[in-house]
């Protein structure tokens, strides 16, 4: 540690976006000085250092500039201003099998591709069996690559790239390919790299992967660095930023956010019902300052209703679903043994979660009013509201289980 492996020194990259691309001589002459272009800064003054042995994540949405940054670091693109300095050999897994020659055999391609990535023939010879073994190619190795299945192609690409033994490994979102077994193998290999003290640069838009393997991460948005820090922190920034940009338009109309509970007005049902829900309010300790709760924080969901007549024995129900539509939790006031008669007028039903034991994610709320006895549903609102949970820690999963570890060595056990 201590040594800097990758130094990104105030890198900016400008792309020229042309209305139309004139790449023939005639067009260039005809449209001389006329080809209008707009400057588009894909990267804007990005600066950070990656220490040797660190696993570093770059988080960002599609189009945030993370691929451009990766290409600048691996030397495929040159920055418009600024410099990138890389100590040691770098191998980039941007596209597996890039540069394979379909006409040549797998064997020839291994040598060719390895030398493209900077490995000498002598080194390839020593690792040849390992590469073939890792790629699970067996006797297919002497077949022309054009007869390979896409799986074989990708496996061979990865096998060559990781065997280049780079000091710095750059991994784009390539792990999404191949079957599950192979993916696990790739992840294992990356972990092995980590344990060998190599530097890994990891680019993704999947926060869970960052949490799982990175030591530190930067968050990019529109080519600008919006933050840098440990994974939990970076993911929080990333999520927050995502929400902000998504909510920016909504909130602009609503004016400055007051430190009041988030209130969602619900249109009244068109047919006459004795009781219906008018709005819900979601409240948590960070209301007004942030849009998420942390695991274990309380959450209050207030259901505002209006009754036009006396309705006896009403039951308020609440459901929590995750983004995949899986029911996380459902309960109602009947289960909680609370008898309630709704009087004409407006009232509220408060649901108070003492602590939300959930990890990362967005969760939707369904709320409803029904009769206790029969099947009469007075009102039922799907996805009436939602809340977001962000986990600043390193644990992954769905539920924040309270956990203690107690380690004993043989002498004390």
């Amino acid at each position: 540690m201590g040594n800097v492996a990758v130094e990104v020194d105030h890198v900016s990259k400008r792309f020229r976006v042309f209305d139309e691309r004139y790449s023939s001589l005639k067009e260039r002459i005809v449209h001389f000085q006329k080809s209008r272009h707009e400057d588009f800064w894909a990267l804007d003054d990005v600066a950070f250092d990656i220490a040797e042995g660190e696993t570093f994540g770059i988080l960002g949405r599609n189009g945030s500039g993370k691929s451009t940054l990766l290409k600048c670091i691996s030397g495929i693109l040159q920055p418009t201003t600024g410099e990138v300095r890389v100590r040691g050999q770098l191998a980039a897994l941007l596209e597996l099998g890039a540069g394979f020659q379909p006409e040549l055999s797998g064997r020839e391609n291994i040598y060719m591709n390895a030398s493209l990535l900077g490995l000498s023939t002598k080194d390839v010879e020593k690792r040849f069996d390992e590469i073939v073994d890792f790629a699970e190619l067996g006797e297919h190795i002497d077949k022309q690559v054009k007869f390979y299945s896409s799986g074989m192609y990708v496996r061979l690409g990865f096998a060559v790239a990781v065997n280049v033994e780079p000091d710095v490994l750059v991994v784009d979102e390539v792990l999404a390919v191949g079957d599950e077994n192979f993916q696990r193998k790739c992840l294992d290999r990356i972990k092995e790299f980590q344990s060998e003290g190599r530097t890994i640069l990891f680019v993704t838009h999947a926060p869970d992967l960052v949490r799982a393997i990175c030591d530190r991460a930067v968050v990019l948005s529109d080519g600008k660095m919006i933050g840098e820090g440990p994974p939990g922190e970076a993911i929080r920034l990333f999520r927050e930023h995502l929400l902000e940009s998504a909510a920016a338009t909504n909130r602009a109309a609503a004016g400055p956010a007051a430190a009041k509970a988030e209130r969602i007005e619900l249109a009244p049902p068109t047919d006459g019902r004795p009781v219906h829900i008018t709005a819900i309010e979601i409240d948590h300790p960070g209301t007004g300052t942030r849009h998420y709760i942390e695991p274990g924080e309380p959450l209050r969901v207030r259901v505002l209703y209006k009754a036009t007549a006396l309705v006896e024995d009403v039951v308020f129900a609440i459901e929590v679903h995750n983004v995949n539509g899986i029911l996380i939790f459902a309960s109602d006031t009947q289960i909680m043994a609370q008898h309630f008669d709704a009087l004409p007028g407006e009232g509220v039903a408060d649901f108070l979660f003492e602590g939300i034991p959930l990890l990362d994610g967005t969760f939707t709320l369904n709320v409803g009013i029904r009769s206790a006895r029969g099947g009469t549903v007075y009102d039922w609102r799907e996805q009436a509201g939602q809340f977001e949970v962000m986990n600043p820690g390193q644990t992954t999963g769905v539920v924040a289980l309270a956990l203690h570890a107690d380690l004993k060595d043989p002498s004390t056990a």
Partner: protein
Amino acid sequence: MAKGRSEVTEAILAVRAETAAERGPKQTRTVAARLGLRQRFTELWRSRELFVFLVRKEIKVKYKNSVLGFLWSMLNPALTLAVFWVLFTIFLPNHLPDFVVYMFGATLIWNFFQNAVLGGTGSIVGNGGIVKKVAFPREILPLASVGSAFMFMLFQSIVLVLFMAIVWHRPDWSQMYILVPALAAIVVFAAALSVFLSAVNVYLRDTQHLVEVVLLAWFWAVPGIYAFSGNVHDKFARHHLLWLYFLNPITPIAMTFQRILFNSMHPRYTNEPHALIPNGVLATYPTHWYVYSDLAVLGISAVLLLGAIALFGRLEGNFAEEL
């Protein structure tokens, strides 16, 4: 089982440690808008193995799945020779003795130059897939085109040697060494043009077509199918335009090849500049004229190559987005 595995692991670890030791201290690589020429050359030198692979690949891929394979690279010039021989000895006799040897001396050089420059011009665009995905010194691509063209020239020279053996045409063994500066000059000149044109072609795709047309005309500026002495020499000399003829850097090189290979038709030397042997074929320039001309071309080409690589570096930054 577990033991076997650990042995394998240890072997792998040993290989890795060895590699690390061999690689020595880590080198720092800089990615920036401008790199010094020295760094460009260092990176080129580091990629020399890649160069070899690319040359080999081009040769392999060219004749893969063809029955006669690389025999084609010899059949092709052999058939061309046959056609020209029939044409210029039987139907349109040009009265050049052993015309095929004379012509082949020049076309060997010309074919190399044409293949190198044409292949080089399209090399970056044609390899867009790798250029966009892998980082390596991209000059390697046009240079590899020059390399593979050179290999093809070697194959073709086998045909020439065979033919010379058949007609028992003796080259000028004693002056053979002049071929070295001549070859060096043409290689460096072709490399300079390839590197330059490959980069330009990324931005202006017309370049490829333009080069094809220019090469077509250029061929006739080289004394390959016609004799330099006689009509050509006289007409240029009459208007004091010989210098224009020699402005073409391929000309002295092709003439060097003819001078060495076609030599036996050269009855005497004179030291008189631009003198011609009456009824002869070759110019009567003394040996050192060939050496100096070739060295001059080599020197100018080397400067051009430096310039081409520097320019390539300037244009390279946007390759990945232009392709």
